[in-house]
């Protein structure tokens, strides 16, 4: 879920860019030069994975996977999400170019949150705990993104209040799907290559 162009006021868009620039500068500093190709390749895989649609009632939703980005890339999730969103705007023309900064915040902050939540597994390394944490990460990343999106929508004027509420409600089933997918992917990786999750 992302805010498209034309909805938010120019000043909010610029503020979004400013805040995400700070986040990008901070996280990019933590990335070593050798990690750049790795982050890029994984970002490409995430980009393609987000094209997968899951059936939901009569329609279908595409995967967001920002929780998983946070789990697997840690702080590098911010540049990864920023570039992913930029390419989405470039390649498909949706997602928004004026709202790129705002969308980096709405998707990136929950990704960082789930990165920190997943670190609890260092204290409780049992398998069931890791799976439970991944489920929570998937859920938190979506509901966090939905809350932030709704907040930005409300900044566009009181005409958007009901729509913001609808966005929140519509994201509840997506949250469940995303939580289950995150759990399944983590359990798969635990079996095949557990060192990826460290």
């Amino acid at each position, binding site marked *: 879920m992302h805010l*498209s*162009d*034309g*909805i938010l*006021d*120019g000043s909010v868009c*610029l503020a979004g860019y400013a805040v995400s620039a700070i986040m*990008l500068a901070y996280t*990019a500093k933590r*990335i*070593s*030069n*050798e990690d*750049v*190709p790795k*982050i*890029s*390749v*994984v*970002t*490409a*895989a*995430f*980009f*393609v*994975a987000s*094209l*997968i*649609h*899951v*059936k*939901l009632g009569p329609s279908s939703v595409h*995967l967001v996977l920002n929780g*998983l980005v946070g789990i697997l890339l840690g702080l590098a999730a911010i*540049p990864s999400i*920023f*570039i*992913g969103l930029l*390419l989405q705007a*470039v*390649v498909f*023309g*949706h997602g928004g*170019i*004026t709202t790129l900064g705002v969308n980096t915040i709405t998707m990136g902050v929950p990704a960082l949150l789930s990165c920190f939540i997943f670190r609890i597994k260092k204290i409780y390394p049992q398998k069931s705990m890791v799976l439970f944490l991944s489920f929570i990460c998937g859920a938190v990343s979506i509901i966090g993104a939905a809350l932030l999106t709704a907040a930005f929508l409300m900044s566009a004027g*009181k*005409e*958007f*209040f009901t729509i913001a509420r*609808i966005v929140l409600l519509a994201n509840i089933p997506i949250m469940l*799907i995303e939580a*289950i*997918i995150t759990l*399944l*992917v983590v359990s*798969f*990786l635990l079996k*095949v*290559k557990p060192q*990826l999750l460290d």
Partner: protein
Amino acid sequence: MHIELDRYARLKSPIHSWDPRFKIISLSALIFAFSFTKQLTLLPFIFVISIIVLLLSRLPLLYIFKRLKYIALFMVPMVILLSTTSGGKVLFSLKFIPVYAQGLTMSLLVVVRTFAILIVFFVMLETTPFNRTIKALHAIKMPDKLVSILFFTYRYIYVYLEELRKMRIALKLRGYKNAMNYHSLKTNGGIVASLLLRSFEQAERICSAMTLRGYTGKFIIRAQFRACWQDYVKEFAVALVIIILLKTTCSL
């Protein structure tokens, strides 16, 4: 899925010949000026400006309209929701559903702004080969690491699109159908996991291969940009439009 980004990037037009550095800066500023407009009276003007930019670029109109069509589809539910839930003065009622004046004007504002922004954005994007756009971004001081990630990610998207296509064919051959059940979720989870697994494994090999070839993390550009007087004239013209737009937005 085939993505044709550079299809019309080599036509001849005043926008195509514009130095990409100047193009990105001026047209991005124009896009932001559009997003600042709040008055209905300005809407025809920003729409006309975007159309003029589009006509100057000589991009095939049909192609741009096709790209806009998907966005238009996304906007329909928003317009309906906005005009029926915004609150305020009821303009008229369709049976039991009230249509609000405020929501309707807001929808008009959003729709015109969106199309004006996207038309200019598509012109900016489609009139330069994407690799050159990336180099121009580097030339206007986008940080090394971000430019590198953008460049490599763009390269590898196509690799993984192909992987996804192959996996989908394999699933289809085994009689898989996307449905709303646990089995489907598990299959999709499996696809995501194996895409990620492949990417992590490939990333290590790519890293070693690049280091062996002398990669140090520096983004080396080959394209040299040289601005001529026409570039400055075009930038000046756009700057003038932006100033007039912002001035009228503030004074109205």
